């Protein structure tokens, strides 16, 4: 028997679910949030003793348990997909706040060009610049249209940074390549560590444009427009994969979720694992979920919002038979289309003899960046690839199990290795590259035919591999990071043209920036949702998150996810008022 109908049911209570809940409940709507994980053990009070690298960073306390539910991966359409049997390449969160609890806090806006990646590429380089099989698309929304929502997210979260472009006026010291902002960041930029300063000086010397990386980790106390006050970062160095015990890191559990709960109109149910939306093809009626006892529950609502991580948003649509499933063999259909990732690699490292840096201090977004080789900020003529990425260096916290380092040629164990790890643990500088991941016709998400989760439902099957464009991009990136490293001038250098492994490897950590599968756009033939993240076919269902990215940019995704969530909330309120049709 169905539960009592509510105005809105949201699946997943992380950044997206929290933001939408805070906006809708304050507008008077009654909202139920279904969170598949726990509600307790996810707040600042629970993280007082969390400086435990083994528990959180190695044994993955805050992430999805792959014994219960995982994904399968094949590198091409002809290969049998194999399950990802333990976490590796990416680390989706679970529990209240989702991955918004364990993120690093690196908070970017995508470039104006990123939202028109297809049109801008064709305009500048011609259609022939897009390799066969690549399927990049415009977003159906422009940077200028999204700007107010970026602004809203940044002021809510208290992002620290230095603007490089306010209303078209370029400001040196900020990111001079960014799109125009309506105003300065809400919080002053972070200071620079010794490591960041070395990078900054080298980049300047080479004529590049370094700036402090935008951060969700507060350098000073901040009160946001919702009335939430958070304190400053302690630079403990335990951000990525950890929760913040002082609330300096913006996190849904310390910002939007309390705001929603305060209205008295937001009910969150933990251990509630949604798997389908009951519908008649035109209207979503209710969300079906497993409760803590494994019993199926049905929550009817006027409006249904999918706010889970990329994979479960897409899986729920496929299991609900909502939207036309994508067929990677023909390129027809939309649900599961344009799955993308983040292209890492091409970094350089340098080791100093006899100089120690306090690498264990820092915060997840304490870095200096250049944007000179991202997006289309440089001329790609003759390079043989499109796209780019951000280049950064800094002090994001060097927990020792994950951060031992030795120069090339050091034995991997034994006395010499032992000497080297002591000598170099605190004496290394690295310059990293985080690149775009373009869409391809044959990269997709669908339901796996063989493997099941703990409830007996099919796992998501990922079809993905590295393609020639990204290999060329990473080779190019390696020459740039090496150039910077040479200018930094450490005693030993490792770098040069970067390379990607023979195949995408699910076992080593790269990035939890999985995107796509429910792309947004202006054309219902190539997108699942419109620019308010509302399903073309089923207007009372909104699907929101990084799943909406038609392809991934050379930046961390959370700033854009936050902006999309605020835009979706506005769309939902409009739809609620009108009662029918597309916003």
């Amino acid at each position, binding site marked *: 028997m169905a539960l009592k109908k509510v105005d809105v049911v949201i699946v997943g209570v992380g950044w997206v679910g929290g933001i939408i809940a805070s906006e809708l409940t304050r507008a008077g709507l009654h909202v139920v949030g279904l969170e598949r994980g726990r509600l307790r053990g996810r707040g600042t009070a629970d993280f*007082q*003793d969390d*400086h*435990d*690298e*083994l528990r959180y960073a*190695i*044994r*993955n306390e805050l992430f999805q*348990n*792959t*014994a219960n539910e*995982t994904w399968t*991966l094949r*590198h091409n359409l002809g*290969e*049998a997909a*194999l*399950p*990802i*049997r*333990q*976490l590796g390449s990416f680390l989706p969160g679970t529990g209240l706040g989702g991955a918004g609890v364990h993120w690093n806090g690196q908070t970017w806006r995508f470039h104006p060009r990123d939202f028109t990646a297809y049109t801008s590429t064709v305009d500048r380089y011609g259609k022939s610049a897009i390799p066969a099989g690549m399927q990049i698309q415009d977003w159906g929304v422009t940077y200028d249209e999204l700007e107010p929502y970026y602004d809203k997210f940044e002021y809510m979260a208290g992002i620290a940074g230095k603007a490089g472009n306010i209303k078209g006026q370029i400001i040196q010291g900020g990111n001079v390549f960014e799109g125009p902002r309506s105003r300065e960041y809400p919080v002053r930029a972070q200071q620079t*560590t*010794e490591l960041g300063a070395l990078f900054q000086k080298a980049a300047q010397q080479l004529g590049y444009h370094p700036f402090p990386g935008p951060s969700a980790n507060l350098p000073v106390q901040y009160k946001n427009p919702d009335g939430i006050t958070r304190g400053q970062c*302690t*630079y*403990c*160095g*335990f951000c990525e994969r950890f929760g913040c*015990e*002082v609330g300096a890191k913006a996190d849904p559990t310390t910002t939007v979720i309390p705001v929603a709960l305060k209205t008295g109109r937001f009910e969150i149910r933990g251990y509630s694992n949604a798997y389908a939306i009951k519908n008649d093809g035109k209207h979503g009626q209710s969300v079906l979920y497993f409760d803590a006892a494994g019993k199926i529950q049905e929550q009817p609502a006027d409006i249904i919002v999918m706010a889970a991580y990329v994979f479960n948003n897409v899986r729920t649509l496929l299991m609900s038979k909502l939207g036309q499933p994508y067929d990677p063999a023909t390129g027809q259909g939309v649900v599961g289309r344009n799955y993308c990732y983040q292209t890492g690699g091409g970094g350089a490292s340098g080791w100093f003899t006899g100089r*120690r840096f*306090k690498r*264990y*201090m*820092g915060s997840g977004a304490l870095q200096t960046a250049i944007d000179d080789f991202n997006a289309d900020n440089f001329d790609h003529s003759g390079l043989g690839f499109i796209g780019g990425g951000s280049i950064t260096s800094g*002090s994001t916290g060097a927990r*020792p*199990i994950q951060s*031992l380092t030795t120069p090339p040629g050091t034995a*991997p*164990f*034994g*006395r010499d290795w*032992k*000497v080297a*790890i*002591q000598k170099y*643990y*605190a004496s290394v500088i690295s310059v990293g590259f985080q690149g775009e991941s373009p869409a391809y016709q044959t990269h997709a998400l669908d339901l796996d035919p063989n*493997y*099941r989760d703990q409830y007996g439902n099919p796992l998501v099957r990922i079809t993905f591999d590295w393609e020639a464009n990204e290999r060329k991009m990473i080779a190019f990136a390696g020459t740039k990071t090496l150039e910077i490293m040479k200018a930094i001038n450490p005693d030993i250098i490792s770098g040069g043209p970067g390379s990607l*492994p*023979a*195949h*995408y*490897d*699910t*076992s080593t950590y790269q990035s939890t920036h999985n995107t796509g599968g429910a792309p947004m756009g202006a054309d219902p033939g190539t997108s699942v949702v419109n620019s308010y993240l509302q399903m073309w076919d089923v207007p009372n269902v909104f699907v929101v998150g990084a799943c909406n990215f038609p392809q991934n940019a050379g930046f961390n995704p959370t700033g854009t996810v936050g902006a999309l969530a605020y835009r979706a909330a506005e769309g939902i309120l409009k739809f609620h008022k009108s009662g029918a049709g597309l916003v």
Partner: protein
Amino acid sequence: MSDEHRPGEEASDVSDSAASDGGTPPGRFSRLKLLKAGAVGIAGASAGGILAGPATAKTKPAPPPALLFLTKWEFDYVTAMAETIWPTDDLGPGAKVAGVGHYIDRQLAGGWGQGHRFYLNGPFLTPADSGHGWQIPMAPADVYRAFLPGFDTYVRRTYAKPYPELDATTQTAAMNDLRTGAASIPLGGSTAFSSADFFSLFRQNVLEGMLADPSYGGNQDMVGWKWVGFPGDPMRRGDVYYEYVFSSKPYPYEHKPLPMKPARGGS
């Protein structure tokens, strides 16, 4: 935050730590006694120096912890192998002193070793190409149990003695056989799990046993942290990183780490 822990209060920290710590190894046990007797002012004082003094003569060393998963034979094997990865030598302590064998024993007995977060449903297919990671129907504890006898057979056949009885140079050669995949071990030998895969798993476990918080049974007396210069739980001295993070000033506690705070019951 941890307001009660300010710089200069390390002694009380260590008292807290040791007081709640049941089966502590000899070094820490002795130091607690000394701290209680007021013989030592600060935590950073060298344990070795204290132990050399007459005060410890009366102190009975705590017995080693019981084994929870490994057999004695497996434990001796793992301990000897861990010493090859991170040796105890004239430069400083290694895996045996740090208790890496006990760390691995506890990990294999616990949720990780028993595969609580591993997806172990079939079918188990042979990967067509690289990049698919763990693809066998075994949890890490099963892998250790299945792999070590095969490795023992290989080592005896190739080097005439069991691993723990080999000299350090030959142990290094045998470890390299694992690393390069040259040793074909029954569980390995296939593309699904090679001896090189076991080497990676084992080496990672040794690093954890050297560098995880001492509460997990390894990194005793924080020897791993002291070796690399990691100050341990940053909040144990209060919010002092502020004063150092943006300056070139050295942090004075790099080699005087503190472990996580022991749990306190509500009152």
